[in-house]
């Protein structure tokens, strides 16, 4: 009964805190919708190739144009092209003259430029082969996921990552920071002179945060489904169980971290030192594939990266919890270690 009242009051106060509700509910949805729409699948060719012809151009230009697919071609004269290049807007530029072809790739836009350049190379090989009377065969590519139930699109990729970051922020800020503030401002002391057992207060807070994270995850999944047609490929019970596990682990982290500083200022610094690198480097917004292997290994030993990986596996690829047992066990181990640190170091004043 006492616990229930405490829980209800926590929810009431939470809903009145505009900042907290914005960052947990609205902000991740805005990110998801924004990026989801921008990078949805089949959003048209993304790379533009600037094409400059000098003199009459190259003899094979017509054939090359025909062979070039999946790239937007912009024909410019050399003055305009030079102007565009100087402004830094051109990723790749193809120059053709009677002597032959030349490709320039912008060193600041390597990803797009390289892609465009490779398409030109490939088209050129096809043209040359055709000139020799050959019909080159293209090997078909099919993109699949290990579980075979891939949720395609950047929005789908992003969703589990955003959920992971959100749990981390509920833990570090919604629990850790709040308790540092309670300690600093004397709320714990005020409670200390009442007969309320303090564990009831903390338990009320913990249960409220668990329900916040479930509500928030449901909300995100619903919006993703309705607006971007992203579906949970795994089972909902397993998905929400994973959410609960993450919330518990990251709350323990927040509690543990809150024991290392007495002041709010100290805690903001400390929590951001933990939060920002984890958020940026845990494969939330982009995959870690491109990073050197040893860095990937280090990151996968930290709690957020394996958690996001597991969540992504369940949600996007229909995996089961036990397929990600190692990663989830690591996350829970972090949670457990933090929990013991918190229990050992926690002080009410």
């Amino acid at each position, binding site marked *: 009964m006492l616990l229930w*009242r405490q829980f209800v009051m926590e929810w009431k*106060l939470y809903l*009145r805190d505009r900042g907290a509700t914005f960052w947990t509910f609205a902000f991740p949805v805005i990110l998801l919708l924004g990026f989801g729409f921008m990078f949805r699948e089949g959003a048209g060719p993304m790379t533009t190739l600037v094409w400059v012809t000098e003199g009459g151009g190259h003899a094979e230009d017509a054939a090359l144009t025909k062979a070039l697919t999946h790239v937007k071609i912009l024909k410019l004269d050399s003055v305009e092209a030079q102007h565009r290049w100087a402004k830094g807007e051109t990723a790749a530029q193809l120059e053709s003259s009677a002597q032959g072809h030349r490709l320039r790739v912008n060193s600041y836009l390597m990803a797009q430029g390289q892609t465009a350049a490779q398409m030109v190379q490939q088209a050129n090989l096809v043209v040359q082969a055709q000139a020799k009377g050959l019909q080159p065969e293209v090997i078909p590519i099919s993109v699949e996921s290990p579980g075979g139930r891939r949720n395609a699109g950047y929005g789908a990729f992003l969703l589990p990552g955003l959920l992971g970051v959100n749990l981390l922020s509920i833990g570090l800020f919604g629990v850790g920071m709040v308790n540092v503030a309670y300690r600093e401002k004397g709320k714990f002391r005020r409670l200390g*002179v009442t007969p309320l057992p303090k564990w009831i207060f903390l338990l009320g807070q913990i249960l409220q945060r668990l329900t916040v994270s479930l509500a928030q995850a449901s909300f995100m999944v619903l919006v993703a489904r309705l607006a971007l047609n992203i579906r949970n490929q795994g089972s909902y019970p397993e998905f929400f169980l994973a959410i609960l596990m993450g919330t518990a682990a990251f709350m323990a982290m927040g509690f543990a971290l809150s024991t290392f500083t007495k002041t709010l200022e100290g805690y903001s610094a400390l929590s951001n030192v933990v939060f920002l690198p984890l958020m940026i480097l845990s494969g939330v917004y982009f995959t870690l594939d491109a990073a050197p292997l040893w860095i990937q290994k280090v990151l996968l030993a930290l709690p957020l990266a394996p958690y996001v990986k597991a969540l992504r596996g369940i949600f996007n690829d229909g995996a089961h919890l036990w397929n990600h047992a190692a990663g989830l066990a690591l996350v829970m181990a972090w949670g457990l270690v933090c929990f013991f640190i918190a229990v050992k170091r926690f002080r009410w004043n």
Partner: protein
Amino acid sequence: MTGYALKVRGLRKQYPKVLAVDGVDMEVRCGEVFGLLGPNGAGKTTTLEIIEGLTEPDAGEIEILGFDLRTQGREIRSRIGVQLQSTSLFNKITPREALELYGGYYPKRRSAQELLERVQLIDKADAYHTTLSGGQQQRLALALALVNDPELVFLDEPTTGLDPQARRSLWDIVRSMKQEGRTVILTTHYMDEAEALCDRLAIMDHGRILTTGTPSELIAQMGLPSVVELFFEGAAPDAAAFTAQSGLAVDRRGDRWELAVTDPKTTLPSILDSAEACRVPFEQIHMRRATLEDVFLHRTGRSLRE
């Protein structure tokens, strides 16, 4: 209930750098308003917080309402009301909700509505506590301290930082607590407040209780019931020559001299004669009854609000 609401024996608390409480003994009778008076850092808050069970003492025995603090803390906490020196609510909570929430922690509780009327916060009952003025927040803190109909109430500097009018209204609330038969223990550094509210007082400095008694007892104990003040234009001059001449101790404070005297009727003429002889350029002379402020000065050599 008759007898003692609080008995404290040999309380000590050492912080890394200061001995905050240095052997405090205290007895408070049921139904009285007891004041702890002392300057900043005297150890008043530390003493109260030890008694309230918030701070662990290094030594000492504490009996509250007949219960032992060490073994019957929960029983004690449900019977005492506490207002802490620092305010402690800061979420977006309304006075009514706060009273209902905190009331829920106790087996015995009073209705929020009644308490709001008591402290005149009906108008603000449903406003967020962050929008209340300083005086209103203090009144809410008092209402919270009364939420469990406590037998013993602790108020730590209930009026510090308030304007005179807000202070008076808090005094009324404290007086009504006494009328309802509650025991009140409060701290303050205002003399007038101590004189106006307290049945008995303890004067505290450097973690020790210097003296205890009713306000009039304390003044009488000092044995120097009157104070003669000589006012100067600008800073008060050195008094060595005057003291040599008159044999009276002078306390120089800012623009005046203060002389504590037992028998002003005979001393006054000699003060005037000596002043004349030493050519003391005073502007005005003034005589008054000694106050608690003088008691404090006499006991510690310092003024209360230095």
